[in-house]
Structure formats: structure tokens, C-alpha cells
């Protein structure tokens, strides 16, 4: 009875995934057979999708670069440094961050954060403008891909922090006490016992965060002032797949709709690839974890 229900649930998930994939492929098909001139931009689907794929990856990369170290540090503080009472409260707060709807993050980013960042961006453009990613002129509204990345980082942070916290807490006490008994400081103990044990878990937390960063729609759509692909992170420009779909789908019609679904298919494939790579990395690291 129970095994039947479990099997059914498992089969259902596969069936849903399969149905989504089939829908995406069927609906995206007309895009691939349409003449290149009919595709938005007039140069075929690849020329259309390439800039927004790169934009998606840039935004996600910024988010992870910021969120991973902070998330791991927050988790370590909660699990190993904070007094018990504080740790519990802080844990709840981090989980609460995850429950805030993305549209709220988007509204915050668009109407508060962006205008605050305008001055720092101006400074970056004036002083570090020779680095391509900080090339000026800086955006006057602050609604750039870097701002979008920062908002995404805030959204991804609770995933990474709460997952890694759970994993840090599972580090065998024996390992930790052994390290301390050998004369290790707390930081050395963390480096020797906690981090190696948690490596696979940290990676899977980061990958889960990456999944959210890649697929995040509303926040990016609200925050980012989109445009063509550019290297500079502090000018308006770039676009992500999810935001492009959200912005144009309501009035999309005919081929344009198929195009957007094809863009969705590309995002689907990227996300699948990311998850598979994550699985592979976790499996590879399993044997080396401090647990055995």
C-alpha cells in the first residue's frame, strides 16, 4: 500500500517533468523552423537567445559570488559561534528571508536599492572605469545587472545559509571534539572537521541557490533596466531569460509566443544541466568527505 503510493508519487514527478519538457519542445518547434528574418532581432534564434543566456548567467554568477561566502559564514556563525539562544532566533530570521515573495524583493530593489547604488556606481565608473565590467557612463537610475545580481544574492542567501547550517550541525561531534583535543582552535577545528565533512552539502546548497537565481523572474523584471548584451555591469543593459519571458508574454502572439517558449526551453535545459553537474560533483566528493 505505502510502497504503491510512494511509487505513484515518484512516477507522477517524472510524468510532470516529462509533460513540461514535451510541451516546451512542441511549442518551441515553430521558432526553429521560422525564417531567420522573422525572429525578433531579424538574425535568427541563436542571435536572439545568446545575449539573454549570457545575461542570465551573469546575473546568477553575481548572485552566487556574493551569496555563497556570506551564506556559509552566516551558517557557520549560527552553528558554531553564536550562543544557543541567539542561534535559534537567527535561524528563524534566515528562514523568514526565504519566505518573502520575490515580487517584494523586486519592488525593494527597484524603488530603494537601485537609487542608493547610483552614487557608488558613479564612483566605480570614475575610478575603476578602465576595468571593462565597470566601464562608464554609469546608469543614472542604478537599475543595472549588478543591482539585479545583488537582489538575487539576497534572495539566494537564505537557501544557502539554511541548508549549510543544517549540514554543519550534522558534523559528527566526535570529529570536532577530537580536533579540539588535539589543540586546534575553533577556526582550525572548523577547517579540519566541519568544512571537509560538509563540502558536498555546501555544493548542493549553492546549486539549489543557482537554480533559483537562474529562474528568478519577477525581481529581475522589476529591477533590471534591460538592453543589449554589454560587458559593463553598472550601465543599463543585459537581460535574463526569465525576465524576458515575464515581460513580453502577456502581449506575445503567434511566432513571438513560440520564441518565448523556446527561450523557456533553453532555460529548462540550462537548469537541468546545472543540476546534473551538481549531482556529479556531489557524488564525486562523497568518498572524500570527512565522514568516513
Amino acid at each position, binding site marked *: 500500500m505505502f510502497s504503491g503510493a510512494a511509487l505513484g508519487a515518484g512516477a507522477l514527478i517524472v510524468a510532470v517533468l516529462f509533460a513540461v519538457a514535451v510541451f516546451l519542445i512542441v511549442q518551441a518547434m515553430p521558432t526553429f523552423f521560422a525564417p531567420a528574418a522573422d525572429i*525578433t*532581432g531579424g538574425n535568427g534564434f541563436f542571435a536572439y537567445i545568446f545575449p539573454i543566456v549570457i545575461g542570465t548567467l551573469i546575473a546568477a554568477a553575481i548572485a552566487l559570488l556574493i551569496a555563497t561566502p556570506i551564506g556559509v559564514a552566516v551558517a557557520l556563525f549560527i552553528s558554531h559561534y553564536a550562543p544557543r539562544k541567539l542561534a535559534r532566533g537567527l535561524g528563524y530570521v534566515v*528562514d523568514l528571508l*526565504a*519566505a*518573502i*515573495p*520575490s*515580487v517584494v524583493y523586486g519592488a525593494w530593489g*527597484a*524603488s530603494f536599492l537601485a*537609487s542608493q547604488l547610483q552614487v557608488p556606481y558613479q564612483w566605480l565608473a570614475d575610478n575603476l572605469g578602465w576595468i571593462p565590467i565597470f566601464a562608464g557612463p554609469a*546608469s*543614472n*537610475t542604478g*537599475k543595472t545587472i549588478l543591482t539585479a545580481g545583488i537582489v538575487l544574492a539576497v534572495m539566494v542567501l*537564505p*537557501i544557502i545559509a*539554511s*541548508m549549510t547550517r*543544517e*549540514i554543519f*550541525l*550534522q558534523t559528527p561531534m566526535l570529529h570536532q571534539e577530537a580536533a579540539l583535543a588535539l589543540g586546534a582552535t575553533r577556526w582550525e577545528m572548523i577547517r579540519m572537521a566541519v568544512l571537509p565533512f560538509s563540502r558536498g552539502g555546501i555544493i548542493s546548497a549553492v546549486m*539549489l541557490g543557482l537554480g*533559483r537565481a537562474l*529562474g*528568478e*523572474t*519577477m525581481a529581475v*523584471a*522589476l529591477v*533590471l*533596466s*534591460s*538592453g*543589449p548584451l554589454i560587458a559593463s555591469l553598472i550601465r*543599463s543593459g543585459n537581460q535574463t531569460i526569465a525576465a524576458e519571458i*515575464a*515581460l*513580453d508574454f*502577456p*502581449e*506575445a*502572439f*503567434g511566432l*513571438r509566443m513560440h520564441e518565448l517558449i523556446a527561450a523557456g526551453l533553453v532555460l529548462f535545459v540550462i537548469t537541468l544541466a546545472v543540476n546534473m553537474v551538481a549531482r556529479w560533483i556531489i557524488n564525486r566528493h562523497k568518498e572524500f568527505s570527512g565522514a568516513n
Partner: protein
Amino acid sequence: MKALHIGRVAVVLTVGALALSACGTDNVVPPSNGGAGAKTTGSSVTGTLTGTGATSVSAAMDAWMAGFQAANPNAKVQYSPEGSGAGRKALIAGAVQFAGSDAFLKDDELTASQAKCGTDGAINVPWYISPIAVAFNVPGVTDLKLDASTIAKIFRGEIKNWNDPAIKASNADAKLPDLAITPVHRSDNSGTTQNFTDYLGAAATSVWTDKASGDWPTALPGENAKGTSGVVKTVTETAGAITYADDSAITGSLGKAELKVGDSYVPVSAEAASKAVDQAKLVEGRNPNDLSLQLDRTTTVAGAYPAVLVSYGVFCSTYKDAATVDLVKAFGAFALSEAGQQEATSAAKSAPLSAALAAKAQAAVKSISVAK
């Protein structure tokens, strides 16, 4: 082991919460206002009118549906704002009884509509007018007079500073600061963009070379934001920014430009927009009851404001059963009536149709008949 379990549950819960909160905006289904005590009559099909189409009219449509159903408790109107193109397609396919569209049916669409709508095809009836304001945030400047080619140059990034001689020329009195111009446009596909670019293309032919489109030309510089509220908010927060948006959405601190029409400058207003729509000619070679308007963006009539959005109700000229005909006629007549236009004006702050145009539109809706 127990700790592990709790940990797992916590992870699952966290992930679940994330998955839930990741959902952005789904299509908002307009409240299907049944009306208190509304009874569905025996054959409910006759009492339900279904439409789909432009998102621009959805606020007005909600008001119309509520008003119509209050007056006709046995009738029910549904409208799903899925986009103008989708609306026209659904009407042609016979999936809905009416469509809302920011553009009238093209000739080939009219031909295609004959399959479901009878030999006269579908008819386009204007029912919603919205003036598009050019709003700016320049400290110390509240009034600006601009002609179409200056506006086009500003939005193309060819005029970069507010103290540019081209702007000074028509605004001798304004204290224009040395401030960079930040043009802000819509990031989502929109009828406002479609009509604004159409205006620029027609009134500033030599400067604005892009085709009119609901998507802003991506090659142009400038910032963008999502939705009318997004562009207005961005401009409000950015000194030196300028945008185009539904007049009703422009709030307090922003200035609105007066457009050059003929030799004078016209401030944006509902009356001026209605006046501009009155100057429009009917598209030729169509059914006499079809009111597809060829807007004259270069009109020189005093007091007309040519940057307007006109949204159409698209109906079949004939329907198969009498009940549908009655329902469509009643709903169309209500939306176009003075009361209906007034409700749209207060709900969506649109410009009411002028009495003359409303009368023509009423006549067009009245001509809808049962297929022989």
C-alpha cells in the same frame, strides 16, 4: 538520527517555501463579478459573454462588467486580458464573442474573420481612448514645450542634455539646467509604446526611423522599467529622466510636456485626446459599420493632442443565435454609453469618446445582427 530527520524536514520545508514564493505574477483573472443574487437562467450559454484581448482596457473592462451585470443580473461577462494579438486570434477562431485590441484588425485578419463572423466579417469599434503624456523630472522646470522631432531625438539619445539649444529654442523662459537626459521606456510589450512610437514615426519622420512596435527598439540607448507604474516611479526618482506614459498615471511632481501641434503647443488632457481622435479618418474600403481609425498624428487642428492610444472592441458583424446578438449589443451599448464611458474614466482615467464618435460607435454596435 532524529536530528538528521528534523534537519531533512527543515530543508524540505525551506525548499518548499522557496518554490512557492518563487512564483511571480500569474495572469490576474479579473473578478468574474456574478453580482449578488444573480441567477443563471435555464440556458446559461445565452447569458454569458466571453471576451479576451488587450491588457490596456482591463481596468475599464472591470468597471464595465460590474456596471453591466448590475443592470442585467441574468447576464454574465467574462474578459481575460491575454494581449491584443491573442484576443484578435481568439475572435477569428470563434473562441470568444468579442475581443479587445489596441490595434484594429488588419485586412487579412478581416478576411479570416469571415469564416466565423459571416460575410461581412468582424467590425472594429473604438471604445477606449487614453492620452499618452510625455513626463519629465527636471528640477526647477514644470512646463516644457516640445515638438515631435525634439522628443524623438531625446528618446533616441541624440539630444543628451537638458540645456541643448534645440530644447532652449522653444522654451526661452524655462531655466534649463546642465543635466544629462535619461530617457526611460517600457521594458514590457505595451500598447502605449506601440502608439507612442507610431506618433513619433508619423510626426517626426526624418528622426524616428524605426517601425511602430509594442516593443521599444532595443538598439536605442536609455533605461527602462516594467509597466506604467515602473517608468513613472523610475522617472520620479531620477533627476533628468523623461518618459511616456498613460496621462492618468503621472503623479504630482513630474512635469508634462506640451506637444507642438500646428504652430501652437497643446497640453495633455482628456478633451484634447478626444479631439485628436475626432480628427481621425476611417480606414477606407471597409464595412460601413467598421470604425477602424486612421489617426492623424500630424494633425494641425488647434487643441488636439495626437499622442493617444485608441483601443477597440472587436465584434462579429453577425452571430448565429439571437441571444448572443442581444447580449453583445447590450454590452457594447453599455460600454459606449455616456454612463459606461464615465465609469471607464473614473476607473481607468481614460478619455471619454466624444459625443459624435460615441454615436457612430453606438450605431455600429446596433448594426450587429443574427446571421441569415
